[in-house]
């Protein structure tokens, strides 16, 4: 039956938190994404790898609706979001950590943590977030931007875990951080994956990406040029190094 087929197709779509087809985006007049296709399954950790300026950050911004001009199709939990403002896209269940972390200077650490409203059931409680990031607990009354870079990153991740969002977009969570902090963030991503979160991660640090991700999309000039499963990553190291220019 045609109806049954549609119903089961919808069921598959809601099982897939993110499906991107032919995504294009512009900064003013300049065309920066040229038809990006991505598929992310529930519970997967996927990275976007690529050189500086390849369009990785722009892909996350376009999914989140921060880019003013975009075209194509972005299905989040089965809902088409391409025409929606970011505040409604968030309500479908996405949490976003921007590259600059976006900790507010005019809010205390606690206010930063409690700022994002609960969007749906299933989010972590304030206590659970603080258990995950014990460093933050001691700094709750400080001004948000008085935290160290690593603590700001943890706060930026922690605050979206409260909302009930099950798809997390993390833009370079390890950028500029000390190795010991990077390890800590890696452990947290692994733990979030075990708890069933779906995560899309922009990374420059391919070694870090290989420790946490299931699959890697390679981005170049606003397009996906390759997809490598993490199980095949060892065999593909020369190819990846060529892509990333390292």
């Amino acid at each position, binding site marked *: 039956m045609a109806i049954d087929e549609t119903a089961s197709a919808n069921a598959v779509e809601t099982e897939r938190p993110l499906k991107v087809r032919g995504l294009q985006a512009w900064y003013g007049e300049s065309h920066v994404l040229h038809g990006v296709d991505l598929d992310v399954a529930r519970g997967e950790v996927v990275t976007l790898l690529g050189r500086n300026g390849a369009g990785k950050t722009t892909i996350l911004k376009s999914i*989140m*609706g*921060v880019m003013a001009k975009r075209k194509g199709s972005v299905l989040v939990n089965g809902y088409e979001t391409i025409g929606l*403002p*970011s*505040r*409604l*896209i*968030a*309500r479908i269940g996405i949490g*976003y950590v*921007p590259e600059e972390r*976006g900790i*507010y*200077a*005019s*809010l205390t650490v606690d*206010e930063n943590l*409690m*700022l*994002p*409203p609960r*969007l749906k059931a299933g989010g972590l409680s304030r206590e659970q977030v603080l258990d995950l990031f014990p460093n933050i607990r001691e700094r709750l009354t400080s001004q948000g931007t008085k935290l160290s870079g690593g603590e700001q990153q943890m706060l930026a991740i922690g605050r*979206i875990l409260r*909302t009930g969002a099950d798809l997390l977009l993390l833009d370079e969570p390890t950028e500029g951080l000390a190795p010991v902090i990077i390890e800590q963030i890696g452990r947290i991503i692994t733990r979030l994956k075990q708890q069933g979160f779906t995560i899309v991660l922009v990374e420059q640090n391919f070694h870090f990406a290989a420790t946490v991700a299931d699959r890697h999309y390679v981005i170049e000039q606003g397009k996906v040029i390759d997809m490598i499963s993490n199980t095949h990553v060892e065999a593909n190291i020369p190819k990846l190094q060529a892509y990333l220019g390292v």
Partner: protein
Amino acid sequence: MTDIFGIPSQVLLGQIVLGLINGSFYAMLSLGLAVIFGLLNIINFAHGAQYMTGAFVAWMLLNYLGINYWAALVIAPLTVGMFGMLVERFLIARLAHLDHLYGLLLTFGVALIVQGLFRNTYGSSGMAYDIPEALKGGTNLGFMFLPNYRAWVIVASISVCLLTWFVIEKTRLGSYLRAATENPALTQTFGINVPLLITLTYGFGAALAALAGVFAAPIYSVNPNMGADLIIVVFAVVVIGGMGSIMGAIITGFMLGLVEGLTKVFYPEASATVIFIIMVLVLLVKPAGIFGRPA
């Protein structure tokens, strides 16, 4: 009779009270301007017209409908606030993507239209609004006679200012406002309705101006120019205090009212210009204002 710096203490204290009264209006109006500027990034030139409209709504309520001062304290700000929200939603919001200068010009135009409408209907001579029965008379403090209504205005404005500060700095709604002021695009990605916050904020700023207008109605005559006259000084207050800080706007408002009052005692010739002289000095030394953060 005791003298302070060769001035009879009654004169001095009388001018301090007068300074605090003016300071109350400066503080309430510059607070509204600062809140609006923070979130909308526009200088609300309609602020004086909104203050004047508040006074007129109170006058109309009393004279056409027999509704008293105490009810007007609620109804006038609500009316002007609603009108402000309509102006924001249907006019200012359409200019949000353009240079902020256009928002300034738009609100200036709205102010001129509103003032023109009132002048057309009521002339510019001004109308009296009686002090409410409960606040008539005064209290002899021993060193001076304090009219009850003036004491009420000072206490009520300080309370309103502190309440506003508390809501913005200490509550959850306030944290949304501060976040939207600092980074509106990111705040939206958390599912917070920033356009709605902007509309409500503009409405609140307009309502605050209208409330100051109701406070002013029994003190000054209700006339279409009362806002335009006052708003120039309030802009100077805002420049001196700096746009960034809520508490800064409140403190600067009261301080400059006091400075103006004291100037009337010690050098009356300068009392009308002293605020502008301070503005020039502050701009030379600290262009972002006393409490402002450099951009």
